């Protein structure tokens, strides 16, 4: 950052004198301050979570990582995040599996296939999806989607029931992780789609025209010129979507059955996530209960950090396509 700024800096001062230099300094100070502020903010959030979580760790008589129960206010307190971690991971993963292909598909369609009128209105509609409050998604999922999901979940059980994931041994198909995943998929779709679309539109015209000139079909052009160029951007879009899925609270809290067990049968009523559990238990939690909820929040905080760091490192690996060579 600094190294790339300096030559510009020097050049500007040579050309226009010292007044610009002062402006540059102030601006640099401001941006640096903003950057440092964010770091301090993150650090203090982390410190707060650790500080408030200590009583929970001290009093817990279960194993914080493996216990599938949540009784922090009973005597002695027993609680663990195993079921929460499982529910959060599998619901987000399922949501990604559903949303990412559709999002990239719509982004490519809008960028390269649709005519101008269709692409503007479709793009607008997808952006609007992102503006719908999550409680609306939750209520819709609970009252509309859930009543129409019996067909597909029964089909999954009947024909793919040999896979434990899709087996339903209860004959009850409501309030499941599967339904929550579908709602989450719809919620993260606009984020991934809108960002991917912007990235695909950045692909230099020269790249595409070169591919076409070599006799590539439209699909081959997308595969060879567009997707490699857009890959890091699509990965960051996906990670933003994943972040939203991991942290989604109220929609999931309304839909899931909030059970503290690891149940691989994702079409049965079950499941709970970090964020949903905090929302559901906060009001009536006692002192240790609050601390335990904050401890679970700390874990979610760490998971989100790790996910983003991994995403960054993936993007860094693909830097050669980042547009500098466009």
């Amino acid at each position, binding site marked *: 950052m600094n190294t790339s700024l300096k030559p510009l800096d020097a050049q500007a001062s040579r050309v226009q004198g010292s007044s610009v230099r002062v402006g540059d300094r102030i601006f640099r100070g401001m941006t640096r301050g903003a950057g440092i502020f964010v770091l301090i903010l993150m650090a203090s959030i982390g410190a707060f979570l650790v500080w408030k979580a200590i009583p929970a760790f001290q009093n817990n008589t279960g194993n914080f990582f493996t216990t599938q129960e949540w009784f922090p206010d009973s005597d002695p307190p027993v609680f663990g995040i195993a079921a929460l971690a499982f529910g959060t991971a599998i619901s987000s993963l399922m949501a990604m599996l559903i949303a990412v292909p559709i999002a990239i598909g719509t982004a490519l369609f809008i960028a390269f296939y649709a005519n101008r009128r269709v692409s503007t209105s479709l793009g607008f509609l997808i952006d609007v999806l992102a503006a719908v409050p999550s409680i609306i998604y939750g209520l819709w999922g609970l009252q509309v989607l859930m009543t129409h999901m019996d067909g597909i979940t029964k089909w999954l059980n009947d024909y793919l029931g040999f896979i434990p994931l899709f087996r339903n041994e209860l004959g009850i198909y409501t309030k499941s992780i599967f339904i929550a995943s579908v709602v989450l998929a719809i919620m993260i779709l606009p984020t991934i789609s809108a960002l991917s679309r912007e990235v695909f539109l950045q692909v230099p015209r020269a790249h595409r025209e070169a591919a076409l000139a070599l006799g590539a079909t439209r699909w081959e052009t997308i595969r060879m010129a567009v997707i490699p160029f857009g890959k890091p951007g699509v990965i960051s879009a996906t990670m933003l979507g994943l972040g939203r899925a991991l942290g989604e609270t109220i929609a999931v809290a309304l839909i899931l059955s909030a059970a503290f067990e690891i149940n691989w049968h994702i079409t049965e009523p079950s499941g709970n996530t970090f964020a949903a559990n905090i929302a559901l238990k906060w009001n*009536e939690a006692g002192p240790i209960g609050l601390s335990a909820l904050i401890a679970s929040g700390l874990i979610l905080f760490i998971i989100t950090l790790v996910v983003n760091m991994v995403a960054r490192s993936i993007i860094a690996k693909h830097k050669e396509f980042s547009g500098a060579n466009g």
Partner: protein
Amino acid sequence: MKIARSAKVAALAATGALALAACSSGDSGGSESPAAAGSIGGIDCATGSIKASGSSAQKNAMTEWINAYQTACEGATIEYSPSGSSAGRADFINNQIAFAGSDAAMDSDELKQAAARCNAAPPINVPMVGGAIALTYNLEGVDNLVLTPDVTAKIFNSEITNWNDPAIAEINSGVTLPDAPIAQFHRSDGSGTTDNFTQWLQAAAGDDWPYEAGSDWTAKGGQGSKGSDGVAASVKSTPNSIGYVELSFVETQGLKAASVDNGGGPVAPTADTATAGLAKAKLTPNADAGPGDMTMEMDYTLADSTAYPVLLLTYEIMCQSGNDATTLPLTKSFLSYAASADAQGILTEIGYVPLPAELDTQVAETVAAIS
């Protein structure tokens, strides 16, 4: 509306002025000096502004009472935030509110902690809002289902999983029960309703309910829904389901409620049978509370064909003595109104259960004695 708002603004301005003038710290909300203007339910009005928080189960009752009080008494502002019982008790201990609403009475530890804010005098628990917990079900063609504590416990414990189970048929002779799996709903959020429901199961069902009672659902199986409205909506939209909600939700959502047979014959949940049930509760004052404490012990095992046993009793927690001089008049006047026949009478209309007359008289006396 406009009048109420300008009154609120005036009260806020007064609060601000007081705070500026006195620089008082740890105040529970300032107040003007009481100047009685008008009365409500036979109680003289007081002015000023107070804050309270706690039990969400009391929310509708409080909203109703506060509206009535503020309409009758100009210059009074009362705010009740339904943040949950535990949060309310914590706010009370930290001297942020004038009184707390709570689904459970404060225990000895909390009473000792709270004494500091009441000028070293321990506070008291006073029952104020009663409620009945109904077992609501969705079974086509079945209109008067009867359930015993044992069978209810086994249903919610996933031991009985089909409606045609002989145990259910035995207590419902003459009723055709479907051959369908039971979809049972409980609260997924922490709640005083769950606490009282599981206390009833624990007391009345014996070994059939092996779990501890508490505000978090502890049994395995079944489905959780958020809030009583969530449980009611789930039961309404799911055929062959059962759940537990406060009585008001049965009425407003047009649901069916089972009669409960605690051993003395089936009793349907109504305001009358629930009040009769509340009358069987025993007064068990906590020795660590202030004089006049009215901690109650419910009789969940009562076997009486006229008294409904699955009940909810919520308290107001207040300082017996050592109230802040600025908040005392309005706190006392408002809570006296809440205990009045007028205010208790409103409860029936909005799905709550009025306190039995004898208990209510005692509540009114206790509130009138705070200083």
